[in-house]
Structures are given as C-alpha cells and as structure tokens.
C-alpha cells in the first residue's frame, strides 16, 4: 500500500462534492485535497459539516454529487468496509467502541482484517502471533495495557477516547481520520492524546477535526476552514490564523 506509483498523488481528493438531506444542502461544492503524509486539520463552526465530510469520505453516507478519491482511486459510492480495506480508517466524534468486549478484543478485532484473517472460521485467534503482537503493541501505544481485560464500556471517558484512537489506527491504515479526538478531555489528557496522535500517525496521512485550537495549531501542517458546507480557506496554520474571513466566521476575537 505504498504510494510508490506516484509519491505526489493526493491521499484524499474531494471534488465538487454535494450533500443534501431532503432539500437542505449541507455540503456545497466541497473541494479538498490532502497530500500523502500530510497532517490536515478541518475546522469550522458547529454544524458546518465537518463530521458530514468525514462521513462522505469514509463511505458512511453517499454524496449527492461529486467524487472522492483515495490515493487516486475513486471511492465515492463504495461501502465503508470497502474503503477501509483500501487503507482509510476513521474515528467517531461520539465514542463508538465495542462496549461488551474487552479492551484487548476491541483492538484485536480491528487488527484482524488487515492481517488477512478476514472471516476465517478455521483459525484460532489466540494462536495468531502477528495479531497478538500487533494488538499488544497498540495497547502499549495507547497506554491501556493495564486495562486489557476490562470491558470497553467500563472504561473512563478519556480511556474510551484513547481506545477509539487505538481501534482507528489498529488496521495500519495509511490514511487516518480523527473526529474531535480530544473532545471532553482535560488539558493534561489532551496533551497526552496529542503526543499519542503525533506518534501513531508518523508517516501517515492524517485528517483531523478539532475545536481546540491548541491541538489544531500544534498538530496540523495544513488547515482547511469549512463554513456552511464550503471550504472558505485552506492553508498553513499561519495563513489561517491571519485570514480575516476565518476570524469572522470561526475564531472570533477570542482566538488563542
């Protein structure tokens, strides 16, 4: 899954995408390009359509018009699992883990497809060394090794958010999309999560939605600002910080 063919090709390419619910247009003429290996943040006011954009890219919902490409291949119209199998993985704004399964099982399930075990019903999951090692590694990475046998539903909120990230990156996808990964975390937890994200997405393409500007400005190579379903600005953190449109539509005078 290396981008050997063309290192310059965009990891994600959204072209002229529209999404309407009934007759409300939520996403209008959305164009977005995320280069491979880039850390791209999407910011914008609540209800601007950031999560919807995630849903459109990851196949959760289908665009009304326009197309989405992953590493050059058309993926709009594909189902979520098909897109996931092509190396795109996402997390959810609302924690979305397997509540009754243990932390270990949560992560392991996310590892299975990518390690090629798929729907196998003739293999013992416990005796798949590469699955075991990878799971253990991820648990270690997200600092949940000591909680491995706890049902995910019983974790604290911050731990569940961390697990959410763990599940997202477990498949080894090259494109990772995180929807407000630090929402609801304290400062300390946020800092920890940021360094975690930074480390885990090393060498990968990252798309992140965040309202916490310290996270956004600390993490992103490039930022796009989404307002009313349309990207009004795109650029480096510096450019965005200075953009008056952005100030008016999103940051307000309180910008940190």
């Amino acid at each position, binding site marked *: 899954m290396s981008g050997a063919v063309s290192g310059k090709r965009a990891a994600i390419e959204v072209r002229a995408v529209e999404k309407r619910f009934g007759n409300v247009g939520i996403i209008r003429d959305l164009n977005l390009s995320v280069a491979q290996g880039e850390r791209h943040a999407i910011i914008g006011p609540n209800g601007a359509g950031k999560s919807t954009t995630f849903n459109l890219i990851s196949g*959760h919902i289908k665009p009304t018009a326009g197309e989405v490409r992953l590493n050059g291949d058309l993926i709009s119209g594909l189902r979520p699992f098909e897109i*996931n*199998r092509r190396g795109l*993985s996402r997390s959810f704004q609302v924690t*979305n883990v397997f509540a009754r399964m243990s932390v270990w099982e949560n992560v392991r399930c996310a590892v299975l497809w990518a390690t090629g075990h798929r729907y*196998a*019903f003739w293999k013992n999951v416990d005796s798949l060394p590469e699955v075991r*090692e990878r799971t253990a590694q991820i648990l270690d990475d997200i600092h949940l090794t000591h909680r491995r046998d706890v049902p995910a539903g019983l974790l604290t909120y911050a731990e569940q958010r961390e697990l959410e990230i763990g599940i997202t990156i477990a498949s080894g996808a090259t494109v990772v999309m995180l929807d407000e990964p630090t929402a609801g975390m304290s400062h300390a937890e946020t800092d920890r999560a940021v360094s975690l994200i930074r480390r885990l997405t090393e060498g990968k393409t990252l798309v992140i939605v965040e309202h916490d500007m310290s996270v956004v400005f600390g993490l992103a190579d490039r930022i796009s600002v989404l307002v009313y379903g349309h990207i009004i600005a795109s650029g480096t953190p510096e450019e965005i910080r200075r953009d008056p449109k952005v100030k008016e539509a999103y940051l307000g005078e309180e910008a940190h």
Partner: protein
Amino acid sequence: MTTTKTSTSKIADKPAGDGLRFYGVWLIGIAALIVLPIVFSSGGSLTSFSLIGIAIVFALSYNILLGQTGLLSFGHAVHYGLGGFAACHMMNAVVSHGWPIPLPFIPLFGGLGGLVFAIIIGWVMTKRAGTVFAMISLGIGELVASSSLILRSVFGGESGITTDRTALPKMFGWSFGPQLQVYYLIAFWLVLSAIAMYALTRTPLGRISNAVRDNPERVQFIGYDPHVVRYLAFCFAGFFAGVAGSLAAINFEIANSAYLGAIQSGLVLFSTFIGGTAYFFGPILGAILVTYLQLGLTSVTSVWQLYFGIIFIGIVMFSPGGIAGLVMMHRPLVRAGTLWTVIPSYLVAVVPTVALACGIILTIETIARYSGGEVINLFGIGFKPTSPVTWVAAAVLVIGGAFVARLTWRRIADAWDRAATVARDRGYLA
C-alpha cells in the same frame, strides 16, 4: 508475552494452569457423559439424557445467533426441523437404496439440511439486525411450519415422516435399537458439536460476530461487512440446529411439522436466555433445566405451565444474566477468597425462601385441585385441598415466608456488597 506456540491458554500471557483447567473441564464433561447412563440406568433417565443432549446442541446453536451475534430469532426451529426431515429422508433413502451409510453419519446430513436452508434464506434475512430480523424470522418460521402441512410429499402432513433407525447399516455391530446406543450416539454428536461451536467462538469470525453484536456500525470501519458476518453466523447456527434436529429425528424416528413450529422456536429462545447468553456454557444449563422441567413438571402437577411461567418470570426478573450469570457472579469472590463471607447469609436465606416457595406451591395446588379433591403431597406431607388447615398452612407459609425471606435477602445483598468491595479492592472486579 513470551508464551510458546504450543501454549494452550486463551490469552497468551495467562498462566499455563488455565489451559490445564480448560481441558480439564471438557474432559470431565466427556467423562460424565460416558458414565451418566451407567450411574442412572433406568429407562426414564436414559430418555431424559437423550432429550437433554439434543436440547443442548440446539440451544448452543441458537446462542451463536443470540449471544454471539446479537440476532434475536423467533424462527430458529426451522433449521432444526428441516434438519430432522433431512435426516428422516436420508435414513429412508439409505435403507431403500442400500447405501453403505451407517446411522452415526446421519446428523451430518441433517446439519446440511439446516445449513442449505440457511444459505438460501439467510442472505436476505440478515441484511438487517434488530427488530426487522426478529420479525422476518417470525414470519419465515410460521411460513415454513405452515407450508410443511401443505407440502405433504416432503413433510408428510400432520403425521409427519417416519423412519426406522435400525434398518441402516450397522456400525461396530450396533443396531441403535436400544435407547442406550442412541444415547451414546447423541452424546458423541453433542461433544463434537459443542467442541466445534466452542472453537467457533475463538476464531476471527467468532470474535467479529461479537463486535457486530456490540456495534455493527463501527465494524464497517474496521474492514468488515456486518451483513456477511451475520450471514455466516446464521449459516453456522443453521447447521448445528440441523444437527440437533436430526438427532431428534433419530431419537424419535419421526419428523413432523411441530419440529419447525413456533413452540420449538420459543423453547430454544427460552432455554438459551434462561441459561445465560453471555457464557458459552449458559445455554447448556438452560437446556438442561428447561428439558428437565418439561419432562418432570408435567408428571407431578397438572398446572405445570403455570410453574413454567413463574420460574421464567422469576429468572428473567431476578437474574437477567441467566443461570450462568448467577454462577459467574461468584467467580471474582472465589478468586478474591471472599465467597465464604456470603455463604452464611445464603444458608440463612434458604429456610424462609423454601417456605415461601412451598407456600406458593400449596396455594396454587389447592386452587387447582379444589374441585377434584386430590391430595397434595409436599415433602411427604399430604394436604387436603378442601381442608381449611391447608389454606391456613398455605397462607402462613406465603406471608410469613415472604416476610422473613425479604429480610434474609437484604442480608445477602449486604454481605454481597461487602464481599464485592473487598474483591474490587483486590482487583478481581472491574
């Protein structure tokens, strides 16, 4: 994480003792199956054991759906029944064509019967989970059961299809006429199926089924199509239900439309839930209890259905995790070594609780037998339903029992809290 490949433990870094214990449980189970008919050799117990064995396979197959994949089916008996019919037809065909297939292989064909139907019907059925699936399964169940009365040439109408298991080629010189031989055949398939179904829970598919149960939406984002997962689980459940059905067909030498019907489907749902869906052995306990009640209650009381209902309501209300949940609740206490602190309160509660139960039984039987005047025999004491003495006894037992029992139950709860706290402190409870 430094266990060798030959390690038997479930999770790699658990102590090897777990593996021994794991195999131990299975070996003890198998040994028990072998010696059971020797210890309890009466015809009655043989019959019961055979039926229980069949019910266990059936309930375990149902739990692949309910417990593992989160699919509530009201029509699981369809596969059971079709397995039964497939087995009957196969047996008849073996006899009439003189094929060299001995009886012990027949359940394989029964399983295929259940499987084939699952393969055909499953894809549309498992498109959705939840209520939609439940209702489709109800519809399919009724549909197949009713059609079976119409398609007389396959299902034999009201009277069903009969067969003679002794007419098949012999194996180890066994004719399978005597119930004992049939019992061992059932036991053999029980062990085989149970191992297979247990193994299934430990495979990638098994684990992903659990994930689909918990959160089908999220599963899509880790590369899996929940529809495919549900479909595969449905097929496996269909296969083992078919095996169970064919065992029943072998046992009774008949298959009829009732095999496919709502009552059978309801019964397996009951057994599975009552036993507890969260643990592999739950449905086993449930199947044992339900079959036993079915056989036993009917012969001691005419209003067995009422007790059936009450027992189920009781379990659903007071032990929603089923019997297995009740048992497993104690595991952390055992590990933490605090179980002994609750046992005394259990013992104290036994007397008033039993008294309460007796009171209820006495009341019900008094009403049920009032007109017939038949004597009620409770622990060897005879009560006349028409005598006021009985009424007073019943009232005293119910009211007094309930009063005292509540106190003792509260004591149990307190003792539990204390023991659980200790267990939590020692890290055995999340």
